[in-house]
């Protein structure tokens, strides 16, 4: 499985002629049990790929929504091993939906790259995005992931010029994540017309599917991006649902999954010339 699971999912969606919807969930937010319920409900709600955040105390590329999600998760005792437990529990009922972890270097350094890659693969993780591990520093982790057939998914950004793009793509597999805005997660809004040529450029250079994320909050925006990208990632808008549900004392799982459903629907309809609203 692992890398193969990501490739199979993109191949299937290509036949369907649509983009993937990628839903980001912070492990342990608002607590481990609820996060697991959300994870288990994601495929039925329309998530094609799951991005599973593992919390870090100092997430330097995140805006306030994901910063706070990480703090909620840490306050409830979530750990890297706890994150793998969630993945393992999810895998018991779903063998097909790829899970990509996303987070920061230090918890991985603490675990040890080789041990982490082995344990993550065993838990059913397919790939990982490490925000503060650029290609210049990533070889030791890439070696460990290769040995376990896992994907290292790199970020290309608005500052990635043609000279740098090959560096970013080298040793990337599964897909490339295009960061649609220069900035932190969940603040600026992504614009489909601006993003389109970059997606095409990255796709051509890498020969891989290109996911777009950072700054996609609404079904309208998700639909617009889905017309030009191979996958649409929504994170901050989903963890905001967690925060609001907790605050309003509402059911967190149903609130998050209903948001996922509306975003996923917009992504599914995007290339049929239909709109959701």
């Amino acid at each position, binding site marked *: 499985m692992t890398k193969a699971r990501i490739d199979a999912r993109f191949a299937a969606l290509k036949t369907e002629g649509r983009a993937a919807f990628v839903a980001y969930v912070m492990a342990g937010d608002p607590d481990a049990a609820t996060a697991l319920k959300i994870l288990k409900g994601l495929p039925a709600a329309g998530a094609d790929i799951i991005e599973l955040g593992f919390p870090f105390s*100092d997430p330097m590329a995140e805006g306030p929504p994901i910063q706070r999600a990480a703090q909620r998760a840490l306050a409830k005792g979530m750990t*890297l091993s706890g994150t793998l437990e969630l993945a393992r529990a999810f895998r018991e009922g779903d063998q097909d939906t790829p899970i990509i972890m996303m987070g920061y270097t230090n918890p991985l350094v603490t675990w040890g790259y080789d041990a982490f890659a082995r344990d993550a693969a065993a838990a059913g993780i397919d790939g990982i995005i490490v925000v*503060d591990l650029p290609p210049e520093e990533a070889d030791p982790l890439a070696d460990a992931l290769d040995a376990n057939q896992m994907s290292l998914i790199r970020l290309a950004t608005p500052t990635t010029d043609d000279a740098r793009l090959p560096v970013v793509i080298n040793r990337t597999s599964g897909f490339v994540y295009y960061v649609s805005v220069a900035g932190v997660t969940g603040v600026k809004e992504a614009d489909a017309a601006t993003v389109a040529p970059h997606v095409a450029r990255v796709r051509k250079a890498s020969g891989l599917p290109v996911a777009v994320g950072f700054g996609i909050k609404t079904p309208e925006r998700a639909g617009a991006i889905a017309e030009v990208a191979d996958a649409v990632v929504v994170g901050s808008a989903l963890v905001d649902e967690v925060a609001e549900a907790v605050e309003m004392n509402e059911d967190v799982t149903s609130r998050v999954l209903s948001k996922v459903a509306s975003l996923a629907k917009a992504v599914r309809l995007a290339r049929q010339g239909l709109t959701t609203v």
Partner: protein
Amino acid sequence: MNAPARPNDYTAYPDASGRFGDYGGRYVPETLMPLVHELDAAYKAAKADPAFQAELNGFLTHYVGRPSPLYFAERLTDHFGGAKIYLKREELNHTGSHKINNCMGQILLARRMGKTRIIAETGAGQHGVASATVCARFGLPCIVYMGAVDVERQKPNVFRMNLLGARVEAVTSGSATLKDAMNEALRDWVTNVHDTYYLIGTAAGMHPYPEMVRDFQSVIGKETRAQILEVEGRLPDAVVACVGGGSNAIGIFHPFLNDEGVKLIGVEAAGEGMDTDRHAAAINGGRPGVLHGNMTYLLQDREGQITEAHSISAGLDYPGIGPEHSWLHDVGRATYLTATDLESLDAFKLTAELEGILPAIESAHALARIGDVARDVGKGGVVVLNLSGRGDKDVATVAAHLGMQI
């Protein structure tokens, strides 16, 4: 970590990838990588350009007030009864600390790079004040990120920065102290990639900052070396400095790295004691990890989550340390001791009473160990301490700890 070898030339580091042994590197989001490479190239060009060095030296002489004196502290020497104690008087610089040396270098580099907006982080406010000062001097807008907790406990410095025209952003995320201010500055940089220069205040963070800040601060050690040779006709037996991120320490250490007869001693903040978890001693109480762009010793829990530092000194209240110090520790070239809040307060009072100098509470951590070092070296020996800042800013803190109101 591999067992490190002692190099033939300590000054040959970092290597091309920004490493001091296992430490350092460039652990930043991809959006910043092109900027980090651009900065590296721009700094290398400036470093090799005599015109840049001449411009910097001019400002260091006429604006900062360099060279700073090397002063024989006769009464401290007599008090401890050991080696002769010299103080490198960085507190006499413009703005009252060594921080201005680095800010002057980096602001000239930012101008050379055509950057029009300056951001900085600060803990105690010393680097923030120095940044605001050079921005005022060169007419550049300055935004200083400062933890909300530090804004509250360093109000006079916040006002100083405002007077100098800087905007102080109180950071409420995380623990609302220096590490969070640095996170927020990095978030600003990643958002404003085209016009913004990040003026980091210590010899830490992603390459090339640890090398660049060290180079700009090495003026301290170069002067010290020449001054001690002139007055004593020999090199010192030991050089002592406090260490938070470690810029004043690496600045005075670096020109002595290849003089193996000179002991290099850093003093970390032990806060309420090394037997508690309320300290800021990354080397003595932490282990290697990755934060703010570099691999270095960090205070962290078993899971690799960064833990909060605690020190009476806001300037040392940081869970990491510059990567070159981590390496110098591992290879055994420098020794890292600790001093508690209370020991530092005693040293603060002693230096005021015996020498008529109010040291910064940061520098007082080094002063807290100077007696031990002077006695170890013994009579006939010579030790130098980097008096990195003045203590006027700390008067209220010291009064509060003495149970007085002012």
